[in-house]
C-alpha cells in the first residue's frame, strides 16, 4: 500500500510548477479578464509541446499513455496557478467522454488531435434550467440532427467540437458535434468567472455523430461526469491550496496593533482550519485518482467523496482568504476574488456538493447491495 504520489510524479509536479509559475501568473489572469480573447494560445502550445494534453491518453490514440495519476498532478497545478486555457473542458471533459463512449474509430480520429492540442473539445450537457439531473435535458436529436440550447458550455467559444447530450428516439444519447458548422450558433454567456469563458450553444438541426449507443446516455454520462469530477477536483484542490498559501503569506506580511495578524488566534486558527480542510480533501482526491487509475468499481464513491470534500475546502478557503485580506481583499485589482469566482464556477458547472451527496448515498447503497 502506498497512499502518495511517486518520485516521477513529484518531478512532473516540479516541472509543471516551474512552467506555470512563469506563464500562468495572476497578473496574466487579470489581463485576460478585461479582454474578449478566449484563451492563452501561447501557453496552450507550450503545454502541447510538453505533451500535457495527451498525458493520460493511450499511446495508440496519440497520447503519452501515462496514468491518471500524472494527469491529476497537472490538474492540481493548473488550479493552483490559474492557467487560462481550455484544458479542463477539452481533457477532463471531452477526451474522457470519447475514452468512455467512443468507438475505436472515433477514438482514432478524435483523440490524437485532442492529445496534441490541435482540437479543443468541451462538454455540452446541461441547459438553461440549471438542473443537473438528466430529466432537465430537452435538446432533441432526430435522425442525427440536433436542436436545442446548451449552457453553460465551458470554453464553448473556442472549442472545435462538443459532446452534446440530447433526447433521441431511444432516450438520452450522446453526440459529437462539430461547432464550426452552420447549424451551431454560439454566444458568450456572462458569468462571474471572466477568465474561463462560458458559452451558450444554440443548435438548429446541427449534424451530430452518435457517441456510444443510442439511449445509453444516462449510464455513459454517469461514468463520464464521475471521471470529469475527479480530475476537476484536483484543479479545485490546487485552487484551495493557493487560497491557503495566499492567506498565510498575507497574515505574515500585514501588521495590526503592532503584531503580524497571523499571530492572532482568530486568524491563525482559521488558517489552521483551512489547512485541515484542504488536507482532508487532498486525501479524498488521491482516492479518486487511484480509482481512476486502478479501480473502476470504486469510481462512483471516490468521485463523490472527492467532490464533496473539495467543494467544502475550496469554498471555505476562498471565502476566508478574502476575509483575512481585509479591505484589499474586496478590490478588483487584488487576487483573492479570482479564486472565489473560479471556485463557484467549478462548483456549479458539475453540480453542487448536495447533488454529489445524493449521488454518494446511492453509490453506497449499491455497494452494500
Amino acid at each position, binding site marked *: 500500500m*502506498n497512499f*502518495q504520489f511517486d518520485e516521477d510524479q513529484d518531478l512532473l509536479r516540479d516541472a509543471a510548477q516551474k512552467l506555470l509559475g512563469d506563464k500562468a501568473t495572476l497578473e496574466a489572469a487579470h489581463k485576460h479578464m478585461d479582454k474578449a480573447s478566449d484563451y492563452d494560445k501561447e501557453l496552450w502550445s507550450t503545454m502541447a509541446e510538453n505533451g500535457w494534453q495527451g498525458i493520460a491518453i493511450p499511446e495508440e490514440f496519440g497520447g503519452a499513455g501515462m496514468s491518471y495519476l500524472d494527469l491529476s498532478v497537472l490538474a492540481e497545478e493548473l488550479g493552483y496557478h490559474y492557467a487560462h486555457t481550455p484544458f479542463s473542458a477539452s481533457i477532463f471533459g471531452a477526451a474522457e467522454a470519447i475514452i468512455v463512449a467512443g468507438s475505436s474509430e472515433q477514438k482514432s480520429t478524435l483523440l490524437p488531435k485532442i492529445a496534441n492540442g490541435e482540437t479543443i473539445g468541451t462538454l455540452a450537457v446541461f441547459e438553461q434550467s440549471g438542473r443537473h439531473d438528466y430529466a432537465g435535458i430537452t435538446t432533441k436529436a432526430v435522425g442525427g440532427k440536433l436542436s436545442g440550447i446548451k449552457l453553460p458550455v465551458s470554453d464553448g467559444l473556442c472549442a472545435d467540437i462538443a459532446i452534446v447530450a440530447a433526447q433521441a428516439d431511444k432516450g438520452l444519447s450522446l453526440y459529437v458535434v462539430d461547432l464550426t458548422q452552420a447549424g451551431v450558433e454560439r454566444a458568450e454567456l456572462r458569468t462571474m468567472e471572466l477568465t474561463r469563458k462560458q458559452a451558450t450553444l444554440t443548435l438548429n438541426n446541427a449534424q451530430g455523430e452518435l457517441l456510444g449507443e443510442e439511449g445509453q446516455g444516462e449510464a455513459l454520462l454517469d461514468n463520464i461526469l464521475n471521471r470529469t469530477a475527479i480530475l476537476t477536483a484536483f484543479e479545485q484542490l490546487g485552487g484551495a491550496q493557493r487560497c491557503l498559501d495566499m492567506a498565510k503569506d498575507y497574515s505574515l506580511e500585514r501588521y495590526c496593533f503592532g503584531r503580524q495578524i497571523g499571530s492572532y488566534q482568530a486568524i491563525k486558527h482559521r488558517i489552521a482550519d483551512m489547512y485541515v480542510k484542504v488536507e482532508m480533501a487532498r486525501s479524498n482526491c488521491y482516492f479518486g485518482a487511484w480509482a481512476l487509475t486502478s479501480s473502476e468499481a470504486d469510481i462512483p464513491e471516490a468521485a463523490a467523496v472527492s467532490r464533496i470534500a473539495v467543494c467544502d475546502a475550496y469554498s471555505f478557503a476562498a471565502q476566508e482568504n478574502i476575509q483575512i485580506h481585509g479591505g484589499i481583499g474586496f478590490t478588483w485589482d487584488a487576487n483573492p476574488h479570482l479564486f472565489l469566482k473560479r471556485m463557484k464556477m467549478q462548483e456549479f458547472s458539475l453540480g453542487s456538493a448536495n447533488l454529489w451527496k445524493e449521488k454518494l448515498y446511492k453509490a453506497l447503497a449499491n455497494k452494500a447491495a
Partner: protein
Amino acid sequence: MDFNDSPTEAKFRAEVVEWLDANATKRDPDDTSALSMFSERESPEMIEECKGWQRTKADAGWACITWPKTFGGRGGTLMENIIFSQEEAKYLTPPNIFMIGLGMAGPTIATHGTEEQKQQWLPSMLRGDVVWCQLFSEPAAGSDLAGLRTKAVKDGDDWIINGQKVWTSGAHYSRWGILVTRSDFDVPKHKGLTYFVIDMESEGVEVRPIKQITGGANFNEVFLTDVRIPDANRLDREGNGWAVSLTTLMNERMSIGGGMGMGADMLIGELNRLAETCYIDGVLGKDSAAVRQKISEYYSRMKSMELTVNRTLSALSKGGMPGSESSIIKVAMGILLQEIAAFAMELQGGAGFEFGEDSTYGGGMWQELYLGIPAIRIAGGADEIQRNIIGERVLGLPTEARVDKGIPFKDIPNG
C-alpha cells in the same frame, strides 16, 4: 500510489488473518461495542483479560510489530503494523489499555533512555505484563504543561517528589508511570523540568478516582507525598525534561490520531439503520434529502480521516518523522464525531436523550459516544492547542505573544 496490498503485503495479511482466526473470534460486523470509549471503572478481571491478549500476541511475535527484536518486537514495517491493526479490529479483542505504554512511554524511553533502561522496561511493557500511565497534567498545568509544579529534590542517589497530578488515566491499574516534575523553580519554566519513570507502588503514591460526565471513572487524581525515585529512573539529563516530554506528546498525537481512522463503515452503517427507522415530521429519515445528505457528508469526512491517517503513515514509512501533521486528524476527528453523534440523537426525536442499554435506539451507543467525545477534543492537547500547533509548526505562523517568556518560573503570574 497503490491503495491495494503489494504481493508481499497480501502475503503478510493472509498470515495475520490465519493467526487471528486461530486465536480470536470474529466480530459481528453489526456489533458496535468497538465504538464504546469509556467503560465502567476497569475491574481486575478485565485488566487480566487485556494482559492475556497482549501476552498471546507477544508470544506469537505480533505485539509491537515495528519494535526491534531485541525488545521482543517483530522488527517489522509500519505498513505491516497497519495491516495487523486493520485485521485485529475485525475481531473481538479486549480494549487496548496499553496505549500509554506502547504508544507513548515506549517510544520516549527508546529515544531518551540508556541501554539499561530500555532493557529494564521495554520487554515487560511489550508483553503486557505491566500497564503504564502518564503523570503529566496537574490542576494548574494542562495545555500549559510546562507550568507544572510537582517538585523534585535530589537526595543522595534518590529524588524526593511532592505534588499532585490529575486526569491520570488508568493510574489505578498501572505499575509504572511517566512523570514530569520541576527540579528548578529559579529558571524559566521550560528549563527547570526533569523526567522520571515512577513505580506506582512506591510509598507516598495515592490514587483517587475521578468521576467523568459519562458516569464512569477511568481517570484519577494522583497525590505524590515524599515519594522516593532512584536517580537510575531519570530519563535524559536533569533539566532536560521538556525535550523528553515533547517526544511523548508527539507520540501521543500520533497514537490518538492514528487510532482514529477506523470505524467509518460501522458508524455510517448504524446511522443508515437509524434513518430507516426514525421519522422527522412524518417523513422517514432516509426519504428526507436533508438526512441523506448529512449521512453522505459524514461518510465523506470519515473517509477523509481514514485516508489521511493512511497518507500520513505512508509518509512515515518512507522515513519521515512523526510530524505535527497528525494534529490535523485529531482536530478534525473530535468535532466530526461530535456532530455525528448529535445528529444521530436528533434523529431519535424524543428518545434522543434516553441513556442506557434499554434505550429505544441503538442500546444507548449514540448517547455514550456523545458524552465521550468531549474527551477527544480535550485530552492529548485540546483542539485550540492543536490549531496553534498547525498554525505555528506546520504553517510557520508567528507564535503567541507570551508574558511568561524568559521569566524565572517562580515569578510567573498564575491562577
